[in-house]
């Protein structure tokens, strides 16, 4: 008798992988728990995020989409085999056979085989340049074909079809959607909603053809294919993608004689067990009560259930799923909750239509008007969280339910959900099964920002639809725990950074003393002083070493250099766009040599000189200024560099002049102080050599302008920047960047990079787009004017500093001696100087480098 329980998992998609995560969560040491698990994936790569597949077209790579933590499958008792396809299950022998002939015994078999795209049986569907939309390989093939195509058609106007249409449009193709039903998203959306959705989608330049049954695909006259419809009309296109629904992959189960659901799929019970109790089925291949679930959340639910049952628990059961969905299709909010079509007997509905802004909202209520049964939201789905929770938790409707979907007027608060009314068991994030109770526990454990909640509970990290509600619950919980949502800057100011910024601007406050006197208490500290200094600089842009401002500056700003571990400073002259003349380089070389500085080219494409003592700084800068350089603000929470590739001027692939724009941008925003440092990148084509998508602001040249990306980050937690506008002219790009930067400066917390700011921004990317691109707050002109003020008041800080004797006097190691700090000692390494370590200093085998300041 084998002492191990052998588990074979067929399928390494999202649900198959989730099953493994659950299993490992229960048994961190599988081998020690007596488990021997083999996972078989037929694709060449382990599990990836199919829900966000379309982001592949906006720059995500296969690695970005991966769901597998490094090393996850490298553990004892677990083996992952890729490119492994099962051809046969022998239930009597308890074995599976792979297509390469391998025979694997199992004690328990988990089928997570997923589904395949349904391709209607249309003559010509096998032609070249006809695709389905399911795997990364499919997407790679589509991308390749898209390069030589002018137009593309998606067959299927459902959820996936519209996602796919977005991908085609992003590839720059003239995009059509052909739908068999009389409306788009027929499953989730009612007729009126379908109409609004259609006009929204058409507004975006996608052609929609409904009630079209394709009968054949033949050679086209003006394009590769001609699609012929049942009424003999036709449409010509270069590529076709079938996305007309999915079919469960139940063929292995059928061959093995397992029970199959009425509409296909492997029939399972409440424990996710098939008719053979040693075989479980989870995800899109399974059918529960003759119902199949094409969403990931119910699949995860089945995986959890199967995992619990394997462990002998029978309390966890699968009880169907709430098929409510909220998603964004080409920037259009679409949400459907519960009984969206109003099929319940006696139900009644309220509807709100705004044909100007193309918004449609409907709620379906029970016959007695006491319960919410379902809803449809198109164009704006802000109420989704509230409506979904009300439906799922059978909560009582407010007195005038129509106000739930009517726009707020006269500043009146909409009747929110009152999150207190939600039970602790209410699942807020259905993708990751996070309950209200779990959010409460996370808050109690000290996770008090939406960013912290996300990383701690995983709530809101899959589809993101629940983020507004999770935020509400988090805040309510904080209040309940007496944590008075405290965003006070420090003990001296009972205000957030955002509020202080506002006070400084509105009350025209120009000094810290005035701010402290009016709005704070005590003397201030190393938190509020630099924050106030930064705010004052963002608003007024006065010289930061003015007598009443100098004492507020963090050490780096205080000496206009980056303090190093030994108390010496680094010197970084600005090289806009990374451009520098030979004479400039020679001057830097000569200066570095003269002062015996260590030189290094930075990641921001400029030269950093290390090892300068405080008293050397003004002399070094005097010489740099004479050579035509100015401060690089490497020490400031301000614009650092605008990295650029060489661009169309030299590069044979370049589409536009990236260096020219980078220089212009760097000169525009230099000296702009912000809550944290800001980095830009400008690439001259989509090859993206400047890594602009890893920057706070990134620009990438397209054939028809510039694509603008924001809120990217390298650093500790890399984050891809997100596209907020496409094909902008240079002038428009600069206006949008003006707005973006000033909006960030106004609203971010201290030391919050744009990426964290964005993660915590209620309303997310959409809201940011609304404010920056669509000017929804009517702030555009004001934000631009504020940036212009800073630009107009720019001065080279180092030039001001070296020319002011009072300021210059401060740059010395000792107030009573011209000597240098003898604790700053260097040793030689790779032909340059580096700081001696503490041990080296003790051993005295160092070569102190004496100052040659003159």
């Amino acid at each position: 008798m084998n002492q191990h329980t052998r588990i074979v998992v067929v399928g390494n998609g999202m649900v198959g992988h989730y099953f493994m995560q659950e299993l490992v969560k229960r048994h961190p040491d599988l081998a020690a728990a007596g488990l021997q698990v083999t996972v078989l994936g037929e694709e060449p790569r382990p599990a990836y995020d199919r829900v966000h597949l379309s982001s592949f077209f906006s720059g995500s790579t296969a690695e970005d989409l991966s769901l597998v933590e490094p090393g996850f499958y490298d553990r004892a008792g677990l083996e992952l085999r890729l490119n492994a396809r099962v051809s046969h299950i022998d239930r009597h022998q308890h074995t599976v056979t792979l297509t390469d002939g391998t025979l694997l015994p199992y004690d328990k078999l988990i089928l997570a085989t997923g589904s395949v795209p349904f391709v209607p049986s249309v003559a010509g569907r096998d032609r070249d340049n006809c695709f389905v939309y399911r795997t990364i390989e499919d997407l790679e093939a589509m991308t390749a074909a898209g390069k030589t195509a002018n137009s593309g058609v998606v067959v299927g106007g459902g959820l996936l079809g519209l996602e796919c249409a977005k991908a085609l449009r992003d590839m720059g193709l003239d995009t059509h959607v052909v739908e068999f039903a009389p409306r788009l998203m027929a499953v989730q959306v009612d007729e009126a909603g379908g109409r609004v959705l259609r006009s929204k989608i058409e507004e975006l330049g996608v052609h929609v053809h409904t009630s079209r049954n394709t009968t054949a695909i033949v050679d086209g006259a003006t394009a590769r294919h001609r699609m012929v419809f049942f009424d003999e009309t036709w449409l010509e296109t270069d590529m076709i993608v079938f996305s007309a629904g999915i079919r469960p992959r139940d063929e292995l189960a059928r061959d093995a004689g397992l029970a199959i659901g009425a509409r296909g799929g492997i029939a399972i019970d409440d424990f996710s067990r098939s008719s053979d109790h040693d075989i479980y089925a989870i995800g899109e291949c399974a059918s529960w009560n003759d119902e199949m679930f094409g969403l990931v959340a119910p699949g995860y639910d089945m995986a959890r259930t199967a995992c619990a049952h394997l462990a002998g628990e029978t309390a966890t059961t699968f009880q169907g799923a709430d098929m409510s969905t909220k998603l964004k299709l080409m920037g259009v909010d679409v949400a459907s909750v519960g009984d969206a079509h109003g099929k319940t007997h006696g139900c009644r509905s309220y509807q709100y239509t705004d044909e100007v802004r193309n918004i449609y909202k409907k709620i379906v209520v029970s016959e007695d008007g006491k319960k919410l049964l379902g809803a449809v939201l198109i164009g704006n789905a802000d109420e989704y969280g509230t409506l979904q929770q009300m439906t799922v938790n059978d909560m009582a409707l407010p007195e005038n339910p129509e106000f739930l979907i009517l726009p707020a007027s006269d500043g009146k608060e909409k009747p929110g959900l009152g999150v207190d009314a939600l039970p602790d068991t209410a699942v807020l994030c259905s993708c990751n099964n996070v309950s209200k109770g779990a959010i409460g526990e996370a808050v109690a454990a000290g996770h008090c920002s939406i960013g912290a909640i996300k990383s701690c509970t995983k709530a809101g990290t899959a589809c993101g639809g629940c983020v507004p509600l999770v935020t509400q619950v988090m805040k309510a919980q904080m209040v309940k725990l007496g944590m008075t949502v405290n965003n006070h800057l420090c003990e001296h100011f009972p205000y957030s950074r955002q509020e202080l910024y506002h006070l400084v601007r509105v009350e025209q406050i120009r000094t810290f003393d005035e701010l402290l006197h009016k709005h704070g208490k005590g003397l201030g500290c190393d938190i509020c002083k630099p924050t106030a200094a930064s705010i004052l600089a963002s608003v007024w842009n006065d010289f930061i070493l003015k007598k009443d401002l100098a004492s507020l500056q963090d050490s780096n700003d205080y000496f206009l250099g980056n303090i190093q571990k030994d108390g010496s400073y680094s010197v970084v002259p600005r090289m806009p766009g990374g451009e520098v003349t030979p004479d400039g380089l020679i001057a830097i070389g000569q200066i570095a040599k003269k002062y015996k500085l260590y030189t290094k080219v930075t990641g921001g494409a400029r030269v950093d000189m290390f090892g300068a003592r405080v008293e050397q700084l003004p002399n070094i800068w005097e010489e740099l200024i004479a050579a035509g350089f100015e401060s690089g603000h490497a020490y400031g929470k301000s614009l650092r560099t605008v990295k650029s590739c060489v661009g169309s001027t030299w590069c044979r692939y370049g589409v536009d002049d990236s260096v020219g724009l980078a220089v212009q941008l760097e000169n525009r925003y230099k000296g702009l102080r912000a809550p944290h440092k800001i980095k830009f990148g400008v690439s001259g084509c989509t090859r993206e050599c400047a890594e602009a998508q890893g920057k706070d602001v990134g620009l990438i040249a397209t054939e028809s302008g510039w694509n603008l990306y924001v809120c990217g980050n390298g650093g500790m937690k890399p984050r891809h920047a997100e596209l907020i506008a496409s094909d902008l002219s240079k002038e428009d790009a600069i206006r949008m960047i003006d707005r973006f930067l000033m909006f960030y400066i106004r609203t971010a917390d201290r030391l919050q990079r744009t990426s964290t700011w964005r993660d915590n921004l209620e309303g997310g990317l959409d809201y940011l787009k609304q404010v920056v691109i669509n000017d929804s707050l009517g702030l555009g002109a004001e934000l631009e004017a504020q940036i212009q003020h800073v630009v107009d008041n720019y001065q080279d800080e180092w030039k001001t500093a070296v020319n002011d004797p009072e300021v210059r006097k401060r740059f010395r190691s000792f107030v009573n001696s011209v000597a240098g700090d003898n604790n700053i000692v260097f040793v030689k390494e790779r032909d340059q100087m580096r700081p001696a370590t503490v041990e080296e200093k003790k051993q005295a085998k160092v070569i102190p480098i004496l100052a040659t300041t003159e």
Partner: protein
Amino acid sequence: MSQLQQAAVSEHTAPAAISNPDSGTWHAVCALDDIWPNTGVCALVDGRQVAIFRLHDDQLYAIDNYDPHSDANVMSRGIVGDLGGERVVASPIYKHHYQLHTGICVENAEVRLPIYAVELRGGTVWVQV
């Protein structure tokens, strides 16, 4: 640069040192005006680096310039302020706070910087080392 030269001269000629065998010698190090309000300077006294701070009320404090958490002579460049009413300076390297009148580290009370007596005499700052 005249101030700098003056200060240097005064150190070399050392005219203003009053010997006190019990607790060190008093040294005149600079003029009060050499220290901007709410900032610090470092004085080199008998080979020792002394950080001297002037607060908004012209109260002076002198502590050792050496930050043991970073092994660097940087305390004089820290930001001064108060925490819970106690006057402190924050090290510019790793931001540990030290009480100005005791030298005790707020985050790690076992660490204590040497403190020095400091006085203002007729516009001149004196420290005892």
